């Protein structure tokens, strides 16, 4: 059978002021019907450019060379008009951001009808019926009514379903999914991936799945192409890539990801440095500057993608190829990431030996509440409801420990952090920082207390003022607290050193730095006043996989060196497992489960925790294939109008299996946190420990 899509030696070059940007250099692959190929790489590695080139959506200024054949028909060199007949009909695309991919002024039904009518001779009513059929297929409840709704009336996950419905409307041969779940919560991601699989099965289309999440690849890909600096560096079946990686970059990428299914206190192996810019690349392997194995041979010429000779391994549909001069050496010595990439050294905390109960409580939340009034009307404003963002939660952080806070977006994690950082009196309940009740503070005392509690934000670009050089950014808190000039200068260089930046960086502006380095600047600033508590709001979620590990290691090392206590908010449960000592799971403003991290992950008791952990893909194809996933129904209910009793019951898989008497209990009584093990509490009437990993 000839492949449905055949890409040969694809090169894409963009012009730029600095010189030609070689975004894709020599990509080749074949794709059969019903197959999924994952395209993996960090931002800037040329994944999305590849998909645009296949679709013919690249800008006119780009130069494209090579060959892209769809079922034997050459696509490169076709005019835009000719491509329009192919786009949406034979090749369709699912974009990353479902909000901007749908036109806000048309109903979603109209948009699907439009896609159908353009490519098929179909009457409007026929197309409308087909649209409803498609919406039903992708799991939109009550599709006949919902087809008349506008995109803003849908949640992110639902919009992505609509996008998938549109993509499969014309029975395409190829679906290109460009980071289809990156903008979504993990529970929604699991739903959308299921829908995508179903859609693919329904149409028999081949799929190109572009992603940076290796877990998603393990569960959904048949073949994998790993890209680095615009070049494919390793290709093969999923098993080849995950179990027999040969290119050091692939090996590093797989090794640096924190694992959900292993508890580990060791430092993560780190890929030092950042990907090179693809303008004026020096000769040699582009990965050489970051590769611990690199020597002169690597700098001579860029290695080509060579077929690997692997006796005893059955040849797969996509033969295993790798672009590295050291392939034989790696294979012979059976090197893994542990051998190649040095794990950083993390200083053990001075508090490690002191039992938790004997440590000082540095942060304590007691029945803290934050409600937002829901207002309506322009002239006469009246309150129409209340959003219970944080609903009477208890939480404590002890000296030297890391408490993780997880949950879907909208669960109240960030609101909790902001409530703490305000250092003001909460609407009800008490917040104590280092034993001081925040409601009793004078203005002066509050300011002084700020020295001891600092924050690191999520978005490394937005968290540092782009107008200030790094020195001034880090010096800022010191100036605010009246340090004198020589001391500030000394302290700033100390801090730069502490977070692993060079002294010469002090004069540069933030945009000269990569995401990971900017996050280090943010951390240095937070540490300037030697705080005792650090609030970390998704500090690594905006970073590329290979950069993430370095920042995680840094945070762990600093905790050991300085005896810091962390309150760590993240939606990535694998990161939390790696960094946290204890974890609290939030759902609609409530903490539903809290406890020692390994207990919660290995034996989650609350159905929500179980679903959350089960939704995370694990970067291991065998594990992924055999895993039974608990997929939650629907979206997070509106926090303005949560279900009565247990807030989770509307989505609870357990609730559905209960008898009517038990269901009444769930609907009438809100469960409270009760102990279910040493240092493990959960809030469910019928919770029982289940292993979901």
């Amino acid at each position: 059978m000839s492949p449905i899509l055949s890409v040969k030696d694809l090169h894409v070059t963009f012009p730029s002021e600095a010189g030609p940007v070689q975004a894709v250099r020599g990509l080749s692959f074949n794709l059969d019907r019903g197959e999924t190929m994952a395209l993996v790489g960090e931002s800037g590695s040329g994944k999305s450019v590849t998909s645009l080139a296949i679709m013919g959506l690249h800008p006119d200024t780009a130069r494209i060379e090579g060959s892209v054949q769809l079922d034997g028909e050459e696509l490169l060199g076709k005019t835009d008009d000719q491509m329009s007949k192919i786009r949406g009909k034979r090749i369709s695309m699912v974009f990353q951001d479902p909000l901007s991919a749908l036109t806000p002024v048309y109903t979603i039904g109209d948009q699907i009808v439009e896609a159908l009518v353009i490519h098929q001779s179909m009457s409007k009513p026929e197309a409308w019926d087909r649209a409803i059929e498609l919406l039903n297929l992708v799991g939109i409840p009550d599709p006949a009514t919902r087809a008349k709704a506008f995109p803003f009336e849908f949640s992110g996950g639902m919009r992505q379903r609509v996008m998938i419905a549109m993509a499969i409307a014309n029975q395409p041969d190829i679906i290109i999914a460009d980071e289809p779940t990156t903008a979504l919560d993990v529970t929604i991601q699991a739903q959308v991936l299921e829908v995508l699989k179903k859609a693919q099965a329904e149409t028999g289309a081949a799929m190109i799945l572009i992603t940076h999440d290796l877990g998603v690849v393990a569960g959904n890909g048949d073949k994998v192409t790993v890209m680095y600096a615009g070049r494919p560096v390793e290709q093969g079946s999923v098993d080849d890539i995950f179990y027999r990686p040969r290119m050091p970059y692939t090996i590093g990428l797989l090794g640096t990801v924190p694992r959900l299914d292993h508890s580990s206190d060791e430092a993560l192996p780190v890929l030092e440095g950042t990907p090179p810019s693809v303008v004026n690349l020096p000769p040699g392997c582009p990965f050489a500057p970051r590769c611990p194995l690199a020597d002169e041979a690597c700098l001579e010429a860029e290695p080509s993608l060579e077929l690997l000779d692997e006796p005893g391994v059955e040849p797969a549909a996509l033969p295993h190829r790798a672009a590295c001069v050291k392939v034989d050496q790696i294979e012979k010595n059976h090197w893994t990431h542990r051998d190649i990439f040095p794990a950083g050294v993390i200083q053990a905390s001075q508090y490690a030996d002191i039992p938790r109960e004997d440590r000082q409580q540095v942060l304590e939340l007691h029945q803290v509440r934050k409600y937002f009034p829901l207002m309506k009307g322009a002239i006469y404003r009246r309150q129409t409801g209340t959003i219970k963002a944080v609903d009477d939660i208890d939480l404590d952080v002890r000296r030297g420990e890391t408490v993780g806070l997880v949950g879907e977006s909208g669960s109240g994690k960030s609101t909790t952090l902001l409530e703490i950082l305000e250092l003001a009196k909460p609407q009800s309940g008490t917040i104590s920082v280092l034993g001081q009740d925040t409601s009793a503070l004078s203005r002066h005392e509050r300011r002084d207390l700020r020295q001891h509690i600092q924050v690191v934000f999520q978005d490394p670009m937005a968290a540092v003022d782009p107008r200030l050089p790094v020195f001034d950014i880090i010096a800022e808190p010191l100036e605010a607290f009246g340090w004198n000039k020589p001391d500030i200068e000394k302290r700033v260089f100390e801090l730069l050193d502490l977070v692993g930046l060079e002294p010469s960086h002090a004069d540069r502006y933030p945009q000269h730095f990569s995401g990971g380095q900017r996050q280090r600047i943010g951390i240095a600033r937070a540490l300037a006043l030697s705080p005792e508590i650090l609030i970390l709001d998704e500090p690594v979620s905006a970073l590329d996989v290979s950069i993430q590990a370095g920042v995680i290691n840094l945070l762990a090392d600093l905790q050991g060196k300085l005896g810091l206590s962390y309150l760590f908010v993240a939606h990535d449960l694998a990161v939390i497992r790696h960094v946290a000592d204890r974890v609290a799971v939030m759902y609609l403003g409530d903490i539903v489960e809290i406890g020692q991290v390994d207990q919660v992950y290995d034996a989650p008791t609350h159905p929500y925790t179980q679903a959350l952990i089960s939704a995370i893909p694990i970067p291991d194809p065998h594990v992924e294939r055999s895993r039974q996933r608990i997929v939650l129904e629907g979206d997070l209910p509106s926090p303005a109008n949560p279900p009565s009793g247990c807030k989770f019951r509307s989505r609870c898989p357990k609730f559905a299996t209960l008898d009517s008497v038990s269901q009444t209990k769930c609907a009438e009584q809100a469960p409270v946190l009760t102990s279910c093990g040493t240092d493990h509490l959960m809030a469910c009437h019928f919770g029982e420990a289940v292993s979901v990993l």
Partner: protein
Amino acid sequence: MTKQNSDAHATSSMAVATDESLATTPELAVASRRIGRRRLIVRRFLRNRLALVGSCGILVLVLVAIIGPFFLPWAYDAVDSRAFLAPPSASHWLGTTQVGRDVLAMTVHGMSRSLIIGFLVAIMQTAISCAMGATAAYFGKWTERTIMWVIDLFQIIPSFLVIAVLMKGHSNPSNSWILMALLLAAWGWMMTARVVRSLTLSLKQREYILAARYMGLSPVKIIIRHILPNISSLLIVDLTLGVGYAILAETGLSFLGFGIMAPDTSLGTIISEGSRLASSYPWIFATPAIILVFLVMCVNAIGDGLRDALDPNSQSGGRA
């Protein structure tokens, strides 16, 4: 690794940052003095040719305005009763006006007046709009409502009438220009204040502003250090436009007789005087008009250069 470093390209050289910096000692760091922010901006500004020409131009004009009168044969208010509407000659290098005043002396004096009024008004109105706009947005609540009310009030009062009445009522011609500058500034800040407010509203949500608050910075400091620099592009463009606006407003008012009063002279009064006779006696009109155009162009070039120097995203970082 070393090869990449020698490239010194901003991003690629940083690729090796983490590993090596750990080995660097703090002593070494302090030894290599850092460049201050101000020097950094000056350096970036000087890379822009046009801005350099503009600043030289302004510098020359200012110098001429200050020391010129000491070297000129005629005073700007002196009347040569032997030369009315005389063309350029050895005694009157740029000719004379209808009443026999030396055009060169008047132009030099007028230029200094226009420069002072232009910059004074522009600086004052930008300062007022910054203070008002940023304060309103940052503090919100009743502060915002009060300031917005004041902005509305100033916008509905017809500025022309107020300025005309107050200028007419003013009896001392020698310092009429000060009052004029104050009045022009007082009615020139509202639109910018609105823009500053809306920009501040969006900046206020940024994480670095939150971070600064949680660091314990005072609101005034946050506004000065974090908010205003981030809208400085707008402020600088506004300031440059303000200079042009002020000079033109002054010209218009002077033309109608509500502005600078004789014998005091501004570029505006000479141009308006010359424009009536421009076809037959072009020398009265030409030089001040050329000077005016040159002046505004210089100011705009400086504005452009400053904006690029202050904006870290621009290309003023030079080539690696």
